[in-house]
Every structure is written in structure tokens, then in C-alpha cells.
């Protein structure tokens, strides 16, 4: 028996925060690779502290649905899951290269394969590109387009910026988009000045956030000048300073995210090869272009 637990942040205030977690979990359930799949939250239920006891399997893959490596993945989740003997060194990460480690949970005795967060997995770059395809409704988007990968910045965690820069660089090296830049909400280069950083007339803006909420629905659209008041909405694309801004909303809502969760579990030894193929077929660009 193998089980998957997706560990996400959740919210006390925003009902939509857990939606992407549920949707990705359902995609993975439908692929049938795990005997059990369960969502778990820092702010909702089942909490990190109690999710393992609801799972029957002796071996559980825990994948954090978080963007960066840091406070939550290195302190909160291992502590709350009661992973005995956890040390961040076990991931041997430079801030964007977390792997996985296997530890016992002290309360249930289950064997936990604790994986790095989805946000720093290589496959996340594909999701960002897929998000650009989705928002432009163009499976070949790239030529003549700039791509801005947007993150929170360093306010609480330096790895937060590293993850954004890592994917921006990785996608840039593919040469698909004319320009790829990492932009931030609270440090330079700032999202407020998005049009100054690009020569391309068309700019796709993909925020590296797990769920839509205050930042992605209110802050970023207003900061970029897509709208004066988020409540009145904005067009996709919206023209700003002679550029067309294609703003995608949180990357974490892209269905292909389910693939990254599976890739994390696969890297930790889960037998999910067929499920990965199925999920990619259902949520990848082939699927999007046939819609």
C-alpha cells in the first residue's frame, strides 16, 4: 500500500485557498497510483498534526504544496508531522534543489518519505510555461513574447526569491520566449515597473503562488496597472504603457501542478510512472490545445 499526503497552507479567511489542493489531489486520485490520497493543511483540517492517523498505509509520501524551501518546509511541516530525526541537511539543498528523505513519524510509527516542495522541482518550469499557454490560449506561445515569473520576494525567506530566479533562468535557457525575467512584489526588480523590464510588446505574467488570494487577485493586478480597483476586474490582455499584459493568476491553479506532486513522490521512490503519464496526458499542453 502506498499513500500520498499533500501538505498545503490553507486559510482561515479565504474559502478558495484549499481549492487547488483539492483539485490536484482529485487528479491524482483519478490516476489511481496511490491507494490513498489525503489533503492536509496548516490552517485547515485535517491539520498536519493529525493527518497521518487518518491514513491506513504504513508508508506515506508527504509532498508540500509550497513554492519555496524554507520556514514551512524545513521547520513547520517536519515538526507538526512529528518526523523523528529530521534535519534540513538531509535534503542537501542549495535552496532550490531539495530531494527527499525517509523518516518515522513518532506518533503513528508510519514511514514517511518527506519530499521537497513542488515549487522548486524542475517540472515546475513546465507548469509555468503551460500557464503561459493557458492564459494566451496558444500552445506555441513564445516568439514575440516576454515572460515574467513573479514571486513574493525576500520579506521572510531568501529562498523565496531563489525559486523564482531558478525557474526564470531555466525557462530563459530554453530560448522559447524572447525574454524571461524574475520580478518581485517587495524587492527589485519590482512588478510595479513590469513594462520597463521588457522590450517585447506582449508580456505574460505568471505569479509563482499556490492559490489565488489577496496577492494574486488584488495586489499584483493593481501594482501592474491592470486596474485601479481589483473589484472591477481587468481584461486579458490589458494594455499598459504600450505593452499587452497577459496576467495568468496563480500558477498553482494550473491542472498540470498535479504532475509536479507526482514527480516529487516518484523522486522519493513512489511507483507512479503510469500515473505521471496519465496526468500529463490529461493536464498537459496536448490536452490544453485540444480543448
Amino acid at each position, binding site marked *: 500500500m502506498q499513500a500520498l499526503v499533500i501538505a498545503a497552507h490553507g486559510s*482561515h479567511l479565504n474559502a478558495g485557498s*484549499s481549492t487547488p489542493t483539492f483539485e490536484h489531489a482529485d487528479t491524482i486520485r483519478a490516476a489511481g497510483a496511490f491507494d490513498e490520497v489525503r489533503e492536509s493543511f496548516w490552517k485547515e*483540517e485535517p491539520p498536519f*498534526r493529525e493527518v497521518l492517523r487518518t491514513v*491506513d498505509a504504513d508508508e506515506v509520501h508527504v509532498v508540500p504544496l509550497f513554492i519555496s524551501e524554507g520556514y514551512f518546509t524545513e521547520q513547520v511541516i517536519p515538526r507538526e508531522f512529528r518526523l523523528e530525526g529530521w534535519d534540513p541537511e538531509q535534503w542537501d539543498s542549495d535552496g532550490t534543489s531539495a530531494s527527499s528523505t525517509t523518516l518515522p513519524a513518532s506518533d503513528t510509527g508510519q514511514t514517511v518519505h518527506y519530499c521537497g516542495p513542488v515549487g522548486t522541482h524542475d517540472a515546475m518550469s513546465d507548469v509555468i510555461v503551460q500557464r503561459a499557454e493557458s492564459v494566451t490560449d496558444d500552445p506555441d506561445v513564445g516568439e514575440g513574447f516576454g515572460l515574467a515569473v513573479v514571486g513574493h520576494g525576500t520579506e521572510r525567506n531568501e529562498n523565496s526569491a531563489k525559486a523564482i530566479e531558478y525557474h526564470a533562468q531555466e525557462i530563459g535557457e530554453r530560448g522559447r520566449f524572447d525574454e524571461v525575467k524574475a520580478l518581485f512584489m517587495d524587492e527589485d526588480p519590482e512588478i510595479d515597473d513590469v513594462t520597463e523590464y521588457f522590450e517585447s510588446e506582449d508580456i505574460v505574467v505568471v505569479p509563482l503562488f499556490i492559490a489565488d488570494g489577496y496577492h494574486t487577485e488584488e495586489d499584483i493586478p493593481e501594482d501592474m496597472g491592470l486596474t485601479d480597483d481589483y473589484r472591477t476586474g481587468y481584461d486579458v490582455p490589458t494594455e499598459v504603457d504600450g505593452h499587452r499584459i497577459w496576467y495568468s493568476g496563480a500558477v498553482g491553479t494550473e491542472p498540470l501542478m498535479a504532475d509536479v506532486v507526482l514527480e516529487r513522490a516518484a523522486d522519493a521512490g513512489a511507483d507512479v510512472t503510469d500515473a505521471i503519464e496519465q496526468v500529463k496526458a490529461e493536464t498537459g499542453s496536448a490536452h490544453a490545445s485540444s480543448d
Partner: protein
Amino acid sequence: MLDESLDALVTAANDGITFDGLEVTPTNGSYTVAVDGESATAATDAELRSLVSDHPDHVTNWYFWHAVAPQKQDRWSFLRWLEGANERAVADRYERLEAGIVETWGQLRIEVALVDTDGNRRYSLRHEDDAGVPGEELDTHTDPLDARTLAKHDDDGRYRPLKTAPSLQTGWQFPDLTADQVVSAVDFFYPATSSNWHKEREGELDVSHWHETVERQTGIYGVVETWDRGEGYEHVNWVAEACCDDSQCLKRREWQYDEETELDIDGGDGSFPCREPCSLVISAARKWTKLEGEQPATYEFELTPSEKEQIEAIIDAVAEGKTEEIREADVYDDANRYRTRFLRAKLFDDEGNLCGVDTEQ
């Protein structure tokens, strides 16, 4: 299923069976069979098969609990509890199951009934307030995963951050669930409650009390630990009274101030235990830690006796969530909206200060 059940039972008989009043003891190639205390002997497997087939309810009951019901201990025990399996003999239980046995779990009404003579159970689930509502008037669901969506909002469409708040929406039903599915649906409505309930019954509930829970916090919640300044535990009584009362959460609070110090507030009557302060309590406690760090000041207000009582009534109405119930024209209720607006018009200055008294003095 009876044939299948008999096959499985005869196979299992080699290791002996003792279950719900059915006993099969293998002895030197033959079997001693006791059903509800009456004994007989079977010399061969075929005789055993014939003998127990006279007690089909015992056979299907044994099969259901060993081959159909989920075997994870807490799920199994929860399902057994639903039909009172430990208290009711098979004959009595099967008779009751014909009509359906009903239990309540939080605000869930769970009914289990036999659907055929093969011992198959059907579980149905709805809000306890919908007990008497005809099924066709309720939205019908078949997939336990739907419970996640139903649990998200209350009847007024407001987000429910706490799954065990007594605000579960009404108007839906799961009329036909299997044993696996009902356990799963209950876990989506009230996550981990049956697991913790089972642990408690086994004497293994791992309670984390207030002090150790706040000690564990880091990041923005690390500050809560500083609220415990060796000044007793009265503040934790207030937290429990505010957040954990049955009117706010259906879990029965089992955590105390610490292992040695019980809180003075009742933990409630819930079926399932609460094993540690939840994230809502910790979030609120973070706010209270900051607020309670303030020093009291003396303010002087002039109020009529009725105005003082009115302020008390308004606080009460907000704390009990009763403001929506107070009718617009019911000016006899102290927390009525017109009455409250009058009070504000009379007593507040332009800056919103009560009786014109500045907060900072």
C-alpha cells in the same frame, strides 16, 4: 454472497473463529460450533458448512466484518459503533438493521441498514436537522469527496474555517454509501474525528495541552508562549470559554492548561475529542497575547442604567452570534439595530469615541 461467505468462513475455521456469538473451534479434523451458546459438532468441512448455513445472519455478519468492512482499526470500530455491534447480539441487531439504525456524529445523521439477506449494509448520511425531510427535497450526492465542498460554507454561504463548528449546511444527502465510503465522507466532514475517538476509546489519545502547544509554536505564533508568564491559567480559561464551548465547536475539549492543571471550563459534550488547541485558537491567542500585554487605564463614562445594560446586551448578542436573529423593529431588544444606532448617535463623538472620551489619555 451467502455462498461466498460460507466458503470464506469454512476456510477461516481452521484457525478458529470467535466473533459476535459465533464460535468455531477446530479439534483434530472436526469442529465444535457454538452459536449464541448452543453447541454442535461438525466432523467435516461439508458438515461445518451445512451447520453454520442454518445461521445465515451469523455467517454474513462474520463475513461483512472480516471481508467487506475496512480493516483499519479506527474505521472498523467506528462502523461497529454505528450499529451498536458490541452491545447487540446478531439476531437483535439484524432485526434493527432491517429498519435502519441511526447514530449522530456532530451534526451528521448516519443511518445504517441491511439491503439484502447477504448482510450487505447501506449507509446514508445527511444533516441531523434534515432527519424528517423527504429525500427528493435534498440534493443527492454519491461521491464522498463532495463532503469537502459541502463542509466549506454554512447555510448563509459563509466560509467555515473550522470543520467542527456547529454550522454545517443543510439540504443534502448521501443516500447510498458503502462502509468504506461512509468512513471517508465522515472524515471529509469532520477530519480525523473518528481516528481520535478510537484512540481515546483505546486509552491512547495523545493530548497536547495548552502549555506544550504554545511552547512548540515558532514564527509569528512564537509570541503566544509569552502569554504564559507564570500568572496562573485564567487567560486559558477565557480562551477555552471563547473558542471551545459547544456553541462554537462540537469537539469535546480534552486538553487542559498542562498535565497537572485542569482548566475550570467544561470541555463540552461532543462525541469526539479535541486533542490540542487548534490553529484557530492559536491564531486568536496570538492576537490576545498582544492585546493582553496592554496596561488597563481608568476611563470615566456617564451612562444611564439602561445604557449600561444595553452595552452588555450588545456584547452578549455579538458573542452568541445572535445579531441576525434580532428583528429590525424589535426595539424592546437591547441589541436591536435601531436601538444601537440611537446609542451611537447619542454617545459617540465625531471620532467614534464613547462619550467623547479619548482612548489615549
